[in-house]
């Protein structure tokens, strides 16, 4: 799980061009959207596309749990692992 979290932090920095930010500066349980890292709704779409591409997972955009899955790196890692196991 820690490996996936590290991969996700690097992925977030790369796709969102977060200059001057290192993976170590993104707390696994910090909010990704709003007051946390400050990502927005376009970023959420971009992150979904990147996750599908990198991990070949299915993301059900109608899922009521989607906001929770995308809330933090830790939640995202758990979501990716659960989808890979299916």
């Amino acid at each position: 799980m820690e490996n996936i979290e590290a991969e996700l932090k690097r992925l977030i920095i790369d796709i969102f061009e977060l200059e001057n930010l290192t993976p170590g500066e993104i707390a696994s349980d910090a909010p990704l959207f709003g007051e946390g890292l400050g990502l927005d709704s376009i970023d959420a779409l971009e992150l979904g596309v990147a996750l599908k591409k990198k991990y070949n997972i299915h993301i059900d955009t109608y899922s009521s749990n989607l906001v929770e899955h995308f809330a933090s790196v830790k939640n995202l890692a758990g979501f990716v692992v659960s989808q890979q196991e299916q």
Partner: protein
Amino acid sequence: MLQAHDSSARATLSFTLEHWCLWQSKSAPIEAIWPNGRILPVLAGGADVSFLPMMQRRRLSPMARAACAVAWDCRETHGDMPAVFFSRHGESQYYLEILSGLAAEAGVSPSRFSLSVHNAIGGLHGLHAQSFQPYVTLAGGDEGFFGPFLEAAGLLLDVPQVLLVWHEQVLPAIYRAGPPSSRGLWALAMVLGGTARPGPQLKLIREATAMDADADSDAADPLPAMLCDRRSGSCRLERATWHWNLQHA
């Protein structure tokens, strides 16, 4: 100010050039420039947009950085006002990337798509500047870069000042057999006011049927005249010839 001399043949646009600001990727020694303007420095990373928070900077392409930098300079000195953005081809590298991806049956990046639309740069600048004024973005057309001046003249019927922002970049190689491409990356912003305001007077005269043999053949680039302080010229376009002059005491 817009003055039609005849229903089809001749019209004059008159402005006060209250301020201008330029950023261009190619720095060169410049001895004399148009009055009331400044040229922003060329830095290694492109135009300096350090006045923006990192989360706002991150989405800006090199051309968007240049456009936001010059527009910001004008708003800092003259405040908020309606704006006309203009680019002949816009974020060409983004829509080429999207089209190439679709041709390869790959997914489309949502953020790239949102930034590829022609009014994205104007919209981002409006958000950054917390502007509540209207803006419009024009693409290339029959009137070349005189088109945004027509739009500005219309806006000046209702407001005292209009911000005009122009941004261009070199087209990707795949497009170069088609329309003329800019020779470099640059952005230019002007604060235009009505003729009653103090400052250099910029006059543009459109002649619908003129075929002036002495007119410039290069209508795509205003910078050479501005950067050598040439005060008059003509540009022959497909449907008209535009004559311009700048008068300053």
